[in-house]
């Protein structure tokens, strides 16, 4: 069972307390964008087999959205961080690189 620590309230929450919210750090495109940009914002997802950055909500806890780095091939969790982050924090990236030397890094 997946366990994530909420970066706001510090609670170690398991899957049933959390609501998954899909890929993190999507760049939103709206009116004025090209068809390509809009299509890829709506539907194209990284869907990696390995390191992935996601949105989660502490649904049955503090109710806030946060972000998590997780391996989709092993379910290992690398860490969580606040939803206000533009990209994953440098320490987290370094920690993932230490564990997954072959990883091409955050793109």
């Amino acid at each position, binding site marked *: 069972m997946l366990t994530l620590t909420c970066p706001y309230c510090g609670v170690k929450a398991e899957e049933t307390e959390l*609501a998954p919210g*899909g890929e993190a750090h999507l760049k939103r495109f709206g009116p004025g964008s090209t*068809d*390509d940009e809009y299509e*890829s914002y709506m*539907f194209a997802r990284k869907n990696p087999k390995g390191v992935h950055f996601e949105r989660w909500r502490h649904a049955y806890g503090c109710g806030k959205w946060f972000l998590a780095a997780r391996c*989709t*091939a092993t379910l290992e969790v690398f860490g969580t961080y606040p939803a206000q982050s533009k990209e994953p924090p440098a320490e987290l990236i370094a920690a993932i690189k230490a564990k997954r030397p072959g990883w091409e890094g955050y793109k």
Partner: protein
Amino acid sequence: MKRYSVFAIAREALRYHEGWERAWRAPQPKSAYDVVIVGAGGHGLATAYYLGKNFGITNVAVIEKGWLGGGNTGRNTTIIRSNYLQDPSAAIYEKARSLYETLSQDLNYNVMFSPRGLLMLAQTHHEVRGYLRTVHANTLQGVATEWIEPAKVKELVPIINIDGPRYPVLGALYQARGGTARHDAVAWGYARACSDMGMDIIQQCEVTGVRSEGGQVTGVETTRGAIACKKLGIVVAGHSGQVAEMAGFRLPVEAVALQALVSEPIKPCMDVVVMANTVHGYMSQSDKGEMVIGGGTDGFNNFTQRGSFQHIEETLRALIETFPIISRLKMLRQWGGIVDMTGDRSPIISKTPLGNCFINCGWGTGGFKAIPGSGWAMAELMAKGHSPLAADFGMERFREGRFIDESVAAGVAH
């Protein structure tokens, strides 16, 4: 290939069953083929089969990283139905269902198709309205389904509790010619027929790269060397994103785990398939007597082919009210498969940015029932560049906003 028949059984019985042949060859990969199909699941094998049968294209290799049928084809709960709402879906699923009717004869391999009847329970008023609408749509599409009242449901499924306080049974969408088939046998039957036509099914061989030149695929790299091809078909379900990336394009597909479980075998107690979409559970009884139960998907990307306990709990908790008999059953096994979900929950049978490369994926939680129809359409698309059955399933539909919206119609799809 020696044909299977009652005479063959008699002949072998008289000589200690020593004369059975291997069902398919295990060849070394050649350096080039006219067509390479990546993925020996049901859809990949059916594509190869209809390329040969309908178009005479037999210089074909089907390349599989594990063993054939070891992906979702060998992990699913084998429900076959075609009671979909939208015309393009009804057309391809009904084509598949009708091919299943004679598939054993066609392949000379018993796929144990069992059109035992299928009920989709309506347990909320919303579902009642939805299914009545589906019955009308199916009538127009020429798919035989009917709406049945609770008393008829009880007659068809004596073990059901129709007046559960939380999930009463208000009726059902009934497809009398829906049912099940033996999942492995479907893959094995197609594999044997393909091998018999001279096609190479290459197992334990993973595609690791796609070679292209000037917008055309020239071949694939595999763990057993490079293989050139004139046309490439990618049919790898949960790994579609990975193989598409090798070919240099992205897909509107995400991989999640879907799981199922079976109980200990019991005496025959239910001879139809029952789906309860409100509670995300579905059940049938296998020929061995096990209750085969399917549940919901994980909500997050997952490649682990495992399930999670809370989904089992959720599924069983809800099913127990409708089927009180299962509360005392021991569950024997549980497993997961990685399903490929698209943005509109409908499949993709499509051309790709590479001219001679085609993709068939996105069957998600419900593609076993579609195997013959999907293979039929994909073979036509690959051979002729166009297939009426596949026309609406092109991936440009996401860009054009032309969705085939079935998840709303069915709540859960499989």
